[in-house]
C-alpha cells in the first residue's frame, strides 16, 4: 500500500547561520532515511519543495477561480517536501514517518494513496 508523507515545517528555523547548520543536519537525516529505505527494500519517491513564498495558489469556488500569491494554508508550517513510500500497513508508514527529521515545530501528515484501479 502506498502512503504519502507530507512534511510540514516551520521554515524560519532554517534562517541565519544557525539555520544553515540545521538545514545541513536535516538534509543529512533525509539522506540517511533514503539509505535505510534502499537497504530495507522499501519502494519510495519524493521531492524537496522550494519555500512557501514561491507558491501560487489557485483557489476555486464552485466553478470560478482566482490566483493568490502564497501557499494554500495560512499557518506557520509550510509543506516542505514529500515522500511516497510503499509499505504493508499504516503502522509501517507511521514508523517510517516518525524518522523524518523535523527540527523545530512541524507535522508529518500520513495519507494513503488512492490506488489507480479503484
Amino acid at each position, binding site marked *: *500500500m502506498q*502512503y504519502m508523507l507530507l512534511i510540514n515545517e516551520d521554515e524560519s528555523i532554517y534562517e541565519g547561520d544557525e539555520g544553515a547548520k540545521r538545514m545541513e543536519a536535516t538534509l543529512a537525516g533525509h539522506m540517511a532515511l533514503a539509505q535505510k529505505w534502499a537497504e530495507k527494500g522499501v519502494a519510495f519517491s519524493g521531492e524537496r519543495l522550494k519555500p512557501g513564498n514561491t507558491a501560487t495558489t489557485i483557489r476555486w469556488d464552485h466553478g470560478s477561480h482566482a490566483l493568490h500569491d502564497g501557499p494554500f494554508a495560512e499557518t506557520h508550517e509550510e509543506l516542505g517536501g514529500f515522500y511516497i513510500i510503499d509499505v*504493508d*500497513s*499504516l*503502522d*509501517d*508508514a*507511521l514508523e517510517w514517518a516518525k524518522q523524518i527529521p523535523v527540527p523545530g515545530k512541524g507535522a508529518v501528515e500520513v495519507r*494513503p494513496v488512492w490506488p489507480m*484501479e*479503484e
Partner: protein
Amino acid sequence: MSDSADLARQCMAARPRLVAALAAQLRDLDAAEDAFAEAMAACLALETPPDRVGAWLMTVARRKAVDAIRSETARIRASEAAALIDEGEHSMGNVIALPESIPDERLRLIFICCHPAIAIEARTALALKVVCGLPVSAIARVFLTSEPAMFQRITRAKTKVREAGIAFELPERRHWGDRLEAVLLTIELAYTAAYQDAAGEIDPDLAAEMGRLAAMIAELLPEEPEALGLAALIMLARSREAARLDEIGAMIPLSQQDTGRWDFEAIEQARAWMDDAAVFERSGPYQVMAAIQLTHARRAFDGETDWQAILSLYNALLHMRPGPMIALNRALALAEVEGAESALEFVESLPLDRFGNARPVHVARANLLARTGNVRAARMALDRALVLDPPQAERLFLERCRIELSAI
C-alpha cells in the same frame, strides 16, 4: 431454554472469536460482521443444528465473505481478497489455535480497535461494537450520546481502519502503552453494560468474559498499575454478583446486600492486585475506584462502612476523572457523612439539564429527597427514572421503592 434460543446463544458466544479471526483475514471490520451475521442466520435456519457450531459458522462465514467480495468490487480487488482467503484455508487453524503474545483473539482485536490513528472518542466505541458485540444503542447510552451520533462515529472509525490500511496485527509490546487507556476503558464499559442487568436483558456472559479479560491484562502487564486496578475493580464487582438480586429478580442495593453471599476469594484476589499496584506509587482512577469498592467490601468483616474514607476517595476520583456520574456517587457518600441536605444541594447544582435523561441522576435525587422528608418530590423523581426504561432488575427495585414511598 428452547433449542433455538440455546443455538442462538452458542452462536453469540462464538461471535467475538470468529469476528476477530474474519477481520484479521478480510482486513475489513464491516465485512467480518456482515459475514458472521449471514452465517448465523443460516445456522438458525437449519433443521438440524450442526455438531460444532463455531466451526460450522466459520466455514460458512468465510464462504459468504468470499461471495460478497467477488460480487461487490472490481475484479482485481476481488481476486486479491479471494487469494488472501484461499491462503487462509490452510492457516485458518493457526489463527484460532496458535499461541499468541495475547492469548485471546478478542483481547487482540480490542488492542487493534484502540489504535492511536483512530479518533480517540471512537476507539473504545469501535471495540465495544465489533469485539464485545454491544448494540450501538447500548454504546450510545454509556457515552451519554445519541444513537445516530454514535453510529456515525463507529462508521467513520471502520472506514478509517479499512481505507488507511490499519494493520490487523498486534502492535509491538512497547506500543501497548499508547493503547492501554482505551483498552481498559473498553473492558470497563463492556462490564458496566453487562453488569447493569445481570438478570439477563443484555449479554449474560459478557460480565464474566470481561472479568476474564481484565484478569488476563493484569497478568500480561503486571507493571501497569492501572491494569491491575481495573482487574481489581471488576473482581470486586463480581464478588457481589450472587448477592445482587433477590428471589424475584429485583436489584438489591449494595448497602442492603447479605455480605454472607459475597465471594471472599474474589475479594482477596482483588486486594492482592491492589497491593501489587500500590508498589508503583502511580495512582489512577481505576486504583481509586477499586479502593472505594474494597472499602465497601470491608463491611463484611467489621459490619460498618467507612463513609469518610469513601468520600475522600471520591474527592480524589472526581479530580482525576471529572464527570456527572462520579459527582453523583460522591454526593451519595457526602449524604452519609454530612447528611442528605448538603448532598441534595450539591446534586441540584449539577448541570442536570444536560444529563436530564440519565436515569441514575433521578434515582439519586429520589433517594436524597426521600431522606430529607420531601416524599412528594421523591416520588416524582422516581417516576422520571421509571419512564427512562431501566433494566428489569432495577425496574423491580424502583417500583418497590415507589410503593414504599406511597405508603408514607
